[in-house]
Structures are given as structure tokens and as C-alpha cells.
């Protein structure tokens, strides 16, 4: 019983570590040149067809890029853009766009 409790406590304590790895926004900025063509210089897109990225959650952006890469999201433009990105690249880019401001959550 006590051991089980201890195991639960350890698991709970460790769970934030799973998200500890994070991108570097300043590195991401240097890698974001190609993104700007559609998503805008400040992560605010000039075209209604392309999403704003500024202020979006970094973990969501990472998952979205990974899904384009593995084909869980099917979009020929994005698949081409992310195919050569490493996990670190995607984390850095996500951190960069997340550090900007535009999108919001309002209730």
C-alpha cells in the first residue's frame, strides 16, 4: 500500500518533466524565414487561407508540424515545408511563434 502510494507520488512528480524539453525562441526566429512567406513576418498571415501563428501554444504548434510530417495531417504545402525539420527545429519554431502575440482565448 505504502509502496503504491509512493509510486503514484513519484509518477505525479515526474510528469512535468515530460514537457520540460522546450524550444529556443531566438533560434527559432533564425529558422523561421520560409514560414514568413505564408504566415507573415510577425506570425500574422497576410492571406486568409493561412493561419496566424503568433501567440499560439507551442505544444500545439509542435504537434501540428509533426502531424504534417508523418501525414496525420494531409496538406501538400505544409508536408513539403516540414519534411526536413528535426524535432529540435520544430520545438524552436514553435517557441518562436508562441512568444509573439496575436491569438487569444476569450470566453
Amino acid at each position, binding site marked *: 500500500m505504502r509502496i503504491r502510494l509512493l509510486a503514484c507520488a513519484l509518477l505525479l512528480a515526474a510528469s512535468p518533466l515530460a514537457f520540460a524539453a522546450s524550444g529556443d525562441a531566438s533560434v527559432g526566429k533564425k529558422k523561421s524565414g520560409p514560414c514568413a512567406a505564408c504566415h507573415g513576418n510577425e506570425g500574422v498571415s497576410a492571406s*486568409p487561407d493561412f*493561419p*496566424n501563428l503568433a501567440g499560439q*501554444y507551442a505544444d500545439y504548434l509542435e504537434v501540428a508540424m509533426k502531424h504534417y510530417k508523418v501525414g496525420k*495531417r494531409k*496538406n501538400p504545402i505544409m508536408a513539403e515545408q516540414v519534411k526536413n525539420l528535426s524535432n529540435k527545429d520544430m520545438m524552436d519554431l514553435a517557441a518562436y511563434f508562441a512568444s509573439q*502575440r496575436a491569438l*487569444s482565448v476569450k470566453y
Partner: protein
Amino acid sequence: MRPARILAALALAAAAFPAFAAGDAAAGKNKVFQCQGCHGISDWKTAFPEVYRVPKLGGQKAEYLVAAMNAYKKGERDFATMRAMVADLSDQDMADIAAYYAAQAVTTAEKKK
């Protein structure tokens, strides 16, 4: 001659705006109650199959939001919850919902915070 010209102009104008249904943000407000359960809460996370914060929609491009909803509907995006959410939405519903979220841009004052 003149009516024919007007007709031609109208036809051209209609052609310039293809199938995209014009969204009504006010109507959208009454259609987002299910969306808000996740997208209306800051830092709300998915639980399965991957854990990440659900995206912010406020201030997003309306056309993009419609395209994203259609992609979930058609299976071009793989996420069961969203697929279920959009399954019964009409084109007009999606346009209205998109218009509602697109109208929630961050104000200049908020940006400076």
C-alpha cells in the same frame, strides 16, 4: 444593353466570390457552446492520444478555420474529438463559427501587456 451589362457585372462579381459562405459572427456565438468546452479555456489540454494544449482560436483567420474544420470532417486531419465535433456542422455553421472566433482579435492595448 444596360441590363445586359449589369447582369454581366453581377455574374463577374459572383464568380469572384466562390462557394465560401459568408459567416455571421453573431449567429456563430450561439453555435460555439461545444467548442468553448475546450477552446474557451486557457491552457486546456487534450487527453488522448497526445497531450497538448488545444489551440487558441481567437483572432484566427476565418477562411483557415473553415478549411481546418472541413479537413477534420474529411479525415485530412487525424483527431477523433474534432472529427466528431464537426461531423454535423453545415457549411453555414462552420462559416458562422469561424466568423465568431476571427472577430476575437487581441486588441492593441492587450498586445502591449
